[in-house]
């Protein structure tokens, strides 16, 4: 019985760790535009805003042209 509980716990822990790693990777792969100014400041525009969508559409066209 304790062995079964241990196996279940290990499976649950493994699933949790896998889920966290997957979410982190997915978050890193989110579409976004980062603008860097000459003074060193940076503005990050996340996917979903109309501003980002215009720039990301152009970027996708460029990716398609280059590949």
């Amino acid at each position: 019985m304790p062995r079964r509980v241990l196996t279940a716990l290990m499976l649950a822990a493994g699933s949790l760790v896998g889920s966290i790693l997957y979410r982190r990777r997915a978050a890193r792969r989110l579409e976004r535009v980062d603008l860097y100014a000459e003074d060193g400041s940076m503005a990050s525009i996340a996917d979903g805003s109309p501003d980002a969508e215009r720039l990301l559409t152009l970027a996708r066209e460029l990716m398609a042209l280059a590949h």
Partner: protein
Amino acid sequence: MLRRMDAAQALADLTEISSQVVHVAIVDGEGTVLATTISDPGRSARFVEGVTRLLEEADTLRQARGLPSLSQLEAATLEGSVFVVRSGDRIIAATTRPDPTVGLVFYDLKHCLRSIDDAAIANGTPRRSRKKAGDAA
């Protein structure tokens, strides 16, 4: 012609050094392609047009947000990233695979532009600088 040769050499060095960069185009202030890895002239012209539009849109957005002049940008898509670096009147644009090492790509692109400037200085061709926004005409 000499500048094109400098740019071609700088591009060859860049593609040899940087494993993350897939395609690159180096453009001067008049929109002339100095060097590119895109072999088809039609596609490379459309690529440069697209980069110019991307920079214009980014500049508009930058002004709307009250940011100082734009020096570089990264547009990250699921297929990969587009990087653009502006130095003086020259622009270098590159595409990469997804999840690139952003700092490293920017470093390599800036180094590429710097090496063209260094070659131009060594050859006695002065570097032309872009007018900053707000400068009197």
